């Protein structure tokens, strides 16, 4: 299994994923032109040379795919793609990035002997300019537990960001899907968004995914909203994730990303965030020298994450079966081929 930047020839596969994920996955709408434009955009990002002007200030989207390179050569390219994930280098520069921030205000009255905190939802764009990890999807046939493909998809992004640190801002975030009821409805939306948007949740979500967000600024309630006035069912959604999102949240929490009071304006799902340099995988990953040896058992268990550091556009990452030793990591020739590295090249690795 190999992580690499998406290429134009992956368009078929990408569309298949868009169809498969359906409406729930807003950043990948089933729209060939949109997806082609997206690949075009991300290729430009990967191919920007290090040190290029604007690298540290412009929006850029880095989109990766997970390729099953162990399938027989006859399998069509579109069926080799097991999943995808992305990094948005700077959100909110092209179109506004809105969240609710749950703010707290002390209300204190001696006469009433009352001293309490009122939670209030403030429309906010505080994250403008921050990086976002997003668009993670692993197709069902690659979800067997021991393969750790989900972890590979989630975690390789930290290695990428650590290696091309100058392309990213100080802070990084991830938006988590909010809580839904048994009928697939968001109680938060039913109590709040529904009153202001003349469209249903899926429609609103889809438009947002397409980046067509001006309706939010136009129709959103512009005044802060005290959560005390929302029904209990809606309050119970604030900062809570969808059942199926728990593992993803746990993975991000383990990296040090925390809920800091920002929630999705539609479903109240939490944003988790951290300073990029504080993320565990960034802090603990390090560079080593590749040593290629037939003696390494191949392919080995997915134990240590290794990624290339030479060029952004040819980035590769995969699991290797052994840890580094004194600044060197031994690779089996198959692993070296997978990563496209030759002996002596620098790798960034992260042990568990």
């Amino acid at each position, binding site marked *: 299994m190999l992580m690499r930047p998406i290429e134009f020839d992956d368009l078929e596969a990408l569309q298949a994923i868009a169809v498969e994920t359906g409406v729930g996955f807003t950043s990948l709408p089933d729209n060939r032109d949109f997806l082609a434009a997206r690949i075009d955009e991300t290729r430009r990002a990967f191919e920007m040379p290090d040190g290029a002007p604007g690298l540290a200030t412009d929006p850029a989207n880095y989109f990766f795919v997970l390729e099953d390179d162990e399938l027989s050569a006859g399998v069509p390219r579109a069926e080799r793609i097991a999943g995808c994930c992305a990094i948005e280098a700077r959100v909110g520069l092209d179109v506004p990035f809105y969240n609710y921030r749950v703010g707290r205000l002390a209300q204190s009255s001696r006469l009433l002997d*009352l001293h309490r905190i009122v939670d209030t939802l403030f429309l906010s764009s505080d994250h403008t300019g921050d990086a976002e990890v997003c668009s993670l999807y692993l197709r069902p046939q690659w979800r067997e537990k021991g393969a750790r493909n989900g972890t590979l998809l989630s975690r390789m992004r930290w290695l990428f960001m650590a290696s091309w640190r100058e392309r990213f801002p100080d802070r990084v975030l991830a938006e988590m899907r909010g809580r839904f009821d048994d009928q697939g409805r968001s109680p938060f939306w039913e109590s709040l968004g529904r009153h*202001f948007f003349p469209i249903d949740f899926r429609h609103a979500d889809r438009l947002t995914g397409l980046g067509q967000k001006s*309706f939010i600024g*136009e129709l959103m309630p512009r005044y802060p909203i005290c959560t005390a006035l929302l029904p209990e069912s809606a309050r119970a959604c604030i900062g809570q994730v969808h059942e199926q999102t728990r593992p993803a949240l746990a993975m991000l929490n383990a990296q040090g990303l925390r809920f800091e009071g920002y929630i999705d304006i539609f479903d109240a799902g939490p944003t988790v965030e951290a300073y990029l340099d504080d993320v565990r995988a960034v802090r603990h990953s390090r560079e080593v020298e590749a040593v290629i040896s037939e003696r390494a058992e191949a392919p080995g268990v997915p134990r240590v994450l290794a990624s290339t550091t030479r060029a952004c556009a040819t980035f590769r990452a995969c699991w290797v079966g052994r840890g580094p030793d004194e600044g060197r990591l031994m690779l089996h020739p198959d692993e070296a081929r997978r990563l496209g590295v030759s002996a002596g090249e620098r790798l960034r690795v992260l042990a568990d």
Partner: protein
Amino acid sequence: MLLVRPAGTADLPALMRLAEASVPRLTNLPAHRERLAARLEQSTRALAAPVEAPGEECYTFVLEDHAAETPEVVGTASLRACAGAREAYYTWRRETLIHASQQLDVRREVSILSLSHELSEASLLCAFSLDGRYRGTPAERLLRRSRLLFAAQYPERFRAVMGVAMPGWLDDQHRSPFWESVGRRFFARDFHEINELAGIHSKSFIAEVMPPFPLYEPLLSDAARSVIGSVHDGHQAAAADLRDEGFTDSRHVDLFDGGLLLEAPFGQLHSVRNGQWHPVVIDDEVAPAGHAPALVANQQTGEFRCMLVPHALSATRQLRLSTACAGQLGVAAGQAILAVALGEGAREMPAC
């Protein structure tokens, strides 16, 4: 014979009785001995003072029935020179926002309630309570309007706008749906408890406890929304009478129960516009039957008296008063008296 006069400290027991009998209990007439005593004292002081501009004065009047041997106090009503003289007078102001989206090509009207201090600038009719036996009789109109005849004579003591807060709708258990949906969330108290606190103590706790942001009506419970701008069943007749007098429904509703506030430019009130000065002539032959009723008031601040008498004018526009009435009003032949003829709905005429 019914007579309105300024209340004095001796009226405290009667006021306590009337306060306890109010349905619903009135914020501005708490059954609290010290508070009422202070109000009586404040009123007496205000009447004696050479007031040149409206300030903290609150004038309290009582209705006396002289039918029995000893006159009996059967009603009370007050007139506050300035609703927000020391502290702000809070209301919710209903506003309509237009949310329009070019993207979705829709236009929506959204109602909000904004915390407002606007009526702090108004004079306020308040603390009206009448013995049950007299409700629906001319005594009610006499007591209610006597304050306006007083104000008509001393415009320098009052504001350019006059307001009245009508008690809002309550359910069978005397609960306010508006309070349950709004106030309780912030004040953590029962409606009656907060009403009492607000009546007895300062209302500064409102600023301490209420967030300053508008409420979106669509986010309130249906029950709460349905009573915004309502009038308590027991006060519908009063509201109708005040509208007759020239009051109109304002955009404001009560902070606690959502009840309607009526307002009128001072100069447009019937009693202010249509009051006429007449010299008094004593005439014990006046038969009530032949004449429309009129409110009459003398020209004395501290010894202010107001009564309902037949609007019997002589050919030279002198007002014909019985010896008894003139005596009660403290006027002699040739002295001037202010009279306001009552229009429609004032058919019943008490004997005088």
